[in-house]
Every structure is written in C-alpha cells, then in structure tokens.
C-alpha cells in the first residue's frame, strides 16, 4: 500500500480498532521508517487522545489514591497490581502454539527503539533488584547488548497471547523476553524449558511476571540452538522441581 492509501487509517490505528489486515499493513509501513506517515500517526494519536479526553468526568472511588500510592511505596521498581477478579489466563498446548507462532516468527530484526526502551527498563530494574535477580538481569542484558546476538520474534501480532523475542548468542546463551503473560495463579509459578529436537524437554529456571505481564528467562551459554526446536514456558506447582512440564503455556520456535 502507498502512503495515500493510509490516509483514513491513522486515527483508527491509533485507537487500536483497525481490522487486522489493515493494521498489519500500516504497522509494517510505519516500521519501514516512512517519516511522513510517522508524523501523521503521531498526529492521529494526539487527536485520538483529545477525543478520549472528552469523556464525561467520573469520580474515582476514595480509596484508589491510597491504593496506588501504597503499591509503589513498598517496592519502588516493578510493582505488582492487586489481581483482578477475572484472570486472563491463556493456556494453549505447545504444539498448537508452536504451529501458530512458527508462521509468525520473522527471523532477525526488531525495532531499535523498542530494544533501547527495554534496555532502559531493565537497567532500572537492575539498580534495585536483589543480587540473584541482578545477576540474572545482567546475564540477560549482556545477551541483548552483545554484537552477534540474533533476534527471533514470536507471536508478535497476537496481542492477546504471550509474545516477545528470543535473543540468541552462541556463547552467552538465550534470553527470552515475553509480554502479555498473565500472572500465574496462586500456588503456581512459571518455568522455562529447552525443547530439543530429540529427547525430553529440559527445565531451565523458574520466573515470574511483573504487573504488566512482562517477564524474561535466560538460558546461560554456550548454546547450540541448531539442536533445539523451541524454548517453552509452562506453569508448575510453586514448590516443585519439575522434571517434565505440567501445564504447557506456549513455545517459541528457535
């Protein structure tokens, strides 16, 4: 599609209500670096926000101010919200997930801005995390920043499914960065796995999401991903040391 064909789409894209095919076409066009359309999108986003700001005013519940203040007072970085009554848990068999993401894995390449933003967030987290978590974060950062790191995105067009990237460095290891991963239910945790082309999945580590559904897991190197079919995530009972996946959640093909 040419720039002119996007003229009437920017505002609906900015609100997130464009149909998927048009949305994808516009996203790819914006990602291609078209300055003029980039400006029009930013303008459309501003316009969309100004329309949103015309909603009738409603008074928030009195306790909300204290609740938000308290949520950051105790833990200054990466705080978790109170769970909503409706858990948006997405659990798919690995084979189904792998089949769906295989078609979407587009190889190496991602937006530099998003990578820099992620690095900034991770750096902030690194400042105040405990030592073990800091080491884990540092391992992930070293993979992201290393020359020669390759990136494979998965499920990137599926806003309601866990999606993100695998960062692969043959010597340092593999970092999986994932968004939109629901908080694990009480009594459960997330576990990452290497799924070899031959043989049983091998557990890597337990990890948790932040309140935004963001999480990462690191497979320390050196690695030979040519022998892997995927890096996968499952849910496991909180106090377990799993030897095989209990509840597969998704798999990201390498």
């Amino acid at each position, binding site marked *: 599609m040419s720039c002119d064909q996007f003229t009437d789409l920017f505002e609906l894209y900015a609100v*997130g209500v464009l*149909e998927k095919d048009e949305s994808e076409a516009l996203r790819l066009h914006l990602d291609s670096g078209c300055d003029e359309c980039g400006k029009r999108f930013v303008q459309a986003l501003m316009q969309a926000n100004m329309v949103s700001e*015309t909603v009738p005013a*409603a008074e928030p519940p009195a306790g909300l*101010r204290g609740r938000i203040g308290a*949520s950051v007072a105790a833990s200054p970085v990466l705080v978790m919200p109170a769970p909503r009554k*409706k858990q*948006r848990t997405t659990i798919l068999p690995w084979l189904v997930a792998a089949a769906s993401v295989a078609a979407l894995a587009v190889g190496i390449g991602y937006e530099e801005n998003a990578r820099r933003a992620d690095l*900034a967030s991770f750096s902030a987290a690194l400042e105040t995390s405990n030592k073990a978590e800091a080491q884990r974060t540092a391992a992930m950062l070293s993979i992201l920043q290393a020359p020669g790191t390759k990136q494979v995105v998965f499920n990137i067009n599926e806003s309601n499914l866990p999606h993100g990237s695998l960062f692969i460095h043959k010597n340092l290891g593999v970092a999986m960065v994932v968004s939109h991963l629901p908080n694990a239910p009480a009594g459960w945790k997330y576990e990452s796995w290497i799924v070899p082309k031959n043989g049983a999945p091998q557990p890597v580590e337990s990890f948790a999401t932040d309140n935004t559904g963001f999480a990462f897991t690191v497979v320390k190197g050196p690695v030979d991903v040519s022998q892997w079919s995927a890096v996968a995530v499952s849910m496991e009972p909180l106090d377990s040391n799993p030897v095989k996946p209990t509840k597969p959640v998704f798999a990201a093909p390498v």
Partner: protein
Amino acid sequence: MSNLDDHELVNRLQKRDPQAMVDLYDRYGKLIFSIILRAVRITPTAEDLTQETFLRVWNRIHTFSCERGNLQGWLVTVARNRAFDYLRSLQSSASLATSNLDDLERAGYFYSELDQSDRIAKQNAVTQALNLLPDDQREVIHLTHYEGMTQAEIADKLGKPLGTVKGLVRGALKKLRNAMTEETVQ
C-alpha cells in the same frame, strides 16, 4: 497545569519517588478513571485498570523523555489500551482481528512539539468539532474511541451496512482532522 509541572513530575518519577506517583494520580487520576469507566462501565474493574495504568507508567517511566514527553497523552493511551484490552479479553475470536495495543504505547510516540497553549487550542478545536458532528457521526466516534469497537462491530451493533459505518467514520474523522490542523470545519 503546565508542561513544566509535568517535566518535574517525570523527573521525580524517574528517581523512583513514591510521592510523585500520588501527585501523578492527583493530576490525572480522575481523567484516567473516567476514560476507563466509560469503556468498561463497572466501577471495581475500572478501579483495577486505573491502578494497572499508573503502575505500567511507573514501571516504564525510564523510557519516557523528561524534556519533550507528553505525559498526559501517554497516560491516556495506556489507559485506553488497558480498557480496550480488557473488553477484548471478554470477547471471542473477533477481538483478535485488531491491532496490537502494546505497539501504540511506546514512549517515543509521545514527544510533544506543542506548547501548552497550542495544545489547549487544539483540544478546544477537537472538542468543538466533536460537538458539531451530526448525531450518527458522533455516535460512531464514541463507539470507536470510547468503547474500542471496530467498524464491523459497530455495523453489527447498529444494524447498519459496513459501508455506511465506514462512511460515517471517515466523514467524522476528516472533520476532526481538519479541526486539529486548524482548517475549516465542514
């Protein structure tokens, strides 16, 4: 409130000052709650999503430009996305036929080249243009921007042909666009 106030607030948030979070809420909490409540219509859910919105900004504030960022615009976008994402989570596969909301929240999109008076002028122009829209055009804009409905969903809800709905949306957006660019409102 001035951009200068927001710059200071962002600076304090980036220094992880918890009181800055309360000040952020005092400044924008009512607006954010109103946007979310208009979409989800359930007060406890709106309360949770408002908290999620503020925490999302808190956790990502280091990606935001202290000098040039449009903090209000960023918050409104995050709030709207949280509300629409929640609504989609209640729906079936039809909800998957839309764009990735996370893509719209990158802090880099919220660099403002407008000073506060220019922004207020444009806000007034958009509000006025919205009020001047015919009822059917204003209704479809409310359904897209307040409730996160696609044009196909609007056509289904209103019992109108999709082409008619697209025409209404296109006409309304053109008038709003003209208002934003200070052209003649038709």
